[in-house]
């Protein structure tokens, strides 16, 4: 009765905080254990960014134009690497547990789904920032980037707000493997592919067909990229990017609760149909 008594006496918020820390710490342990794979992935992402950077060098006209285009492309590549990682980690919450065989233990523990998804979100943001810094360091050795006027503080502010909405977007996607153990994870790849297409990562959304352009308005990545590019390439202030910031704030307020609500519905469905088990 000792630990149960202690647990019952602990306030709920403290138990939830311990659980959030538990999920973040577990992901850190896993990254440590899969260190070589993490290195391989980081090298691959960096090479990919370099390749895209060299396209900018090859296509650009004079030195200034080339630097601007290269910087435009590299900002897109780095941000996509960061934001897609947040999205992927969140959306893999269920399939990863199922693959390891721990899903039943996690879902029968008394911590909330919010704690689980927030723990995953906290880790993915911290790890994503670390990866982006390493990639930026490697890339800056190869290219003369046009960052003379950059407003880094404004760019960081926009990135932080966008991270919240991306965590929520990831929560929405995380429900898919609960609904379908066999096909759910593949569906989340479609989410990622659509975001890549409509958000203007390597090009301005103006080049998309007319009917496709409005789709960018529902992607938090679109607003984040536009705001961060303006801050880094043209030194735009945070307040001047309000047109990009307010949609991100609204999405940040809507997506996480929506994701949690959908996740709860998915969990109830999985419990009714017997899908909440280690094998699909």
């Amino acid at each position, binding site marked *: *009765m*000792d*630990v*149960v*008594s*202690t*647990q*019952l006496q*602990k306030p709920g918020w*403290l*138990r*939830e905080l*311990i*659980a959030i*820390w*538990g999920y973040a*710490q*577990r992901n850190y*342990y*896993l990254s440590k*254990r*899969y260190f070589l794979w993490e290195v391989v992935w980081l090298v691959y992402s960096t090479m990919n960014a370099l390749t895209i950077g060299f396209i900018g060098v090859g296509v650009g006209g004079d030195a200034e134009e080339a630097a601007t285009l290269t910087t435009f492309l590299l900002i897109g590549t780095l941000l996509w690497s960061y934001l897609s990682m947040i999205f992927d980690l969140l959306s893999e919450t269920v399939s990863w547990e199922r693959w*390891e*065989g*721990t899903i*039943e*233990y*996690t*879902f*029968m*523990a*008394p*911590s*909330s789904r919010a704690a689980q998804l927030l723990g995953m979100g906290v880790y993915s943001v911290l790890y994503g920032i670390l990866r982006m810094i390493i990639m930026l360091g490697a890339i800056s050795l190869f290219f003369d980037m046009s960052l003379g006027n950059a407003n880094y503080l404004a760019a960081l502010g926009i990135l932080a707000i966008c991270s919240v909405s991306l965590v929520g977007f990831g929560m929405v996607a995380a429900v898919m493997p609960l*609904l*379908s*153990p*066999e096909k759910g994870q593949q569906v989340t790849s479609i989410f990622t592919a659509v975001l890549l297409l409509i958000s203007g990562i390597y090009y301005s959304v103006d080049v998309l067909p007319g009917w496709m352009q409005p789709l960018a308005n529902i992607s938090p990545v679109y607003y984040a990229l536009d705001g961060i590019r303006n801050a880094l390439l043209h030194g735009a202030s945070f307040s001047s990017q309000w047109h990009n910031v307010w949609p991100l704030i609204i999405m940040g307020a809507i997506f996480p609760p929506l994701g949690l609500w959908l996740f709860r519905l998915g969990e*109830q469905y999985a*419990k*009714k*149909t*017997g*899908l*909440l*088990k*280690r*094998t*699909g």
Partner: protein
Amino acid sequence: MRVTITHVQRATNALELNDIEKKFRKKRGEYSYALKGVSFNVRRGEVVGILGPNGSGKSTLVRVVSTLTLPDAGTVRVFDVDAVANPREVQRYINRVSVEASFFKKLSSLENLIFGAKLYGVSDRESKPRIKAILESIGFDHKRVGEPMEHLSRGMQQKIALARALLTSPMLMLLDEPTTGLDPRSKRDVQRLIRTIKKDHDSSILLCTHDMSEAEELCDRIGILLNGELIALDTPEGLKRQYGKSSLEDVFMEATGTSIDEADFAPEERMAEDEAEALAGKVA
């Protein structure tokens, strides 16, 4: 409902199941029953064993009590708390060890245990000395706590699974075939641990198994589950008297019309549970 320690302490039964029904969809319009009107209780400090062949509904029963599967009908009460209406409260009092140890294979036993404890609101400061004491009590060499789980034998992994459950001091322990597939020595070690849990940890235990001697040795009462129905429940001696047999194996044969070995490997007996759940997954 606000659950208090007093509320839990006052409950006379650790577990009460009333008329539990659970069916899974096989294909459009076709269902397979995993549990049919199952009712029984586990008193505080009691060990109740459920014997049954593969596919008889044992794992579904454990999943229903674990709050992982919602019953279609009936009530589940754990220390007098409704498990369907208040799953989070119930989850604090239960833990589980299943046939598969189920750990993050690349993580060490220490990392897995620390993580498992945190999900129950147990901090590092509280869990680390407790992990050390539990691992010592189960005879696990502390020098190996940093080794990845995949380097440990199945028997060792199962001991760590028991340690993970003990770490949260569950008042109701759910053991789903915890010794299946273990070598004889590991099996004896795990059975010894279960006896220790019963004696020293003041836990009530629901033990699902198809090992007759294990059930007879560890359980105060034994139920026989067949095709989702609880067809008998009594003390080992009571069952023998009821069926007029001298061994539990003979009781099982008389009650189910088959021996436990045949039942284990008879394909038609497996259908109701695992296959039906797998089909449910494919349908989704």
